[in-house]
């Protein structure tokens, strides 16, 4: 019997799912975000801009997607 094709992840504290084998890059696009204005953590570790393409999401990952907002 074959394994599921989707993974369950947490994004900014909310439960989401993604296709197995999705890269961070692809996932950011999927979320409809502009890649140049966000930064990504996976499991409390920064995934640098240049690592996004080669970093694949895994089942159970905790993902933080942040951007810059007004602040003092």
């Amino acid at each position: 019997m074959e394994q599921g094709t989707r993974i369950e992840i947490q994004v900014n504290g909310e439960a989401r799912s993604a296709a197995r084998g999705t890269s961070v890059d692809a996932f950011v696009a999927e979320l409809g975000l502009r890649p140049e204005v966000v930064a990504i953590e996976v499991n409390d570790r920064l995934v640098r801009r240049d690592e996004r393409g080669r970093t694949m999401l895994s089942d159970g990952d905790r993902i933080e997607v942040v951007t810059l907002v007004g602040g003092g």
Partner: protein
Amino acid sequence: MASTTLHASEPWLADEQLVVGDTVLHSRLLVGTGKYKSFEETAQALAISGTHCVTVAVRRVNLDAKSGPSLLDHIDRSRYVILPNTAGCFDAKSAIRTAELARDVLGTKLVKLEVLGDAKTLLPDPIGTLEATRELVAQGFDVMVYTSDDPRLGVRLQELGAKSVMPAGSPIGSGQGILNPNAIRILLELVTVPVIVDAGVGTASDVAIAMELGAHGVLLNTGIASAREPLRMAAAMRDACTAGRQAFLAGRIPKRLYANASSPTDGLISSHEKPRA
């Protein structure tokens, strides 16, 4: 400081520039971007303030909102140095992660470090601040560190490699101005990196007073953004910063208990009453 062009026309205003780490700042006023009604108002207030360095915060993207305009679309990076802060972090680890995230977005090493002690006073936690400063310096950040006005704490932060010490004049958003000018004065004697008064500024004279004490700059946000007329206050803060800086450089008159006539005391016309000594 106003632009060099201006100085060419006003040589008596000559002043050195403010340098933090590798960054040269053309204005001694640093301005936050929080609490404005709109991105447009933010951009206009920044322009009027004459600032060269604007602070921003790092926050989670709202996944439900359609991908709308970003604050970054309204801050011309060829015109402003962007200073990300770690506001809202209550421990060293969160602050360090936040600084790393900001650096990844901006590609710059400047960070305004805040490690807060509690949500009620938003006063900085000295232990977390010392820890995060050490770590971020090790990671190659140019750390501008928000701290209390404790002068020896400022010395310790400089020893750990901070590029600027940023004492609170009074609690964040309290609008009480410089509660302890004496502490700022001593801090200025003890450290060599730029001292930028951060937090507590409520109105123009607060900025002037900070600069007259010899502070190298002032950072503010609420004082402009929450004023009844933010654009007008932006202009007021701009002028107060140059006024205070120039007054500091000009060398003020000493204070006396009383009287020192500004008109000549001789050559008076004959009088019926003689002045009482």
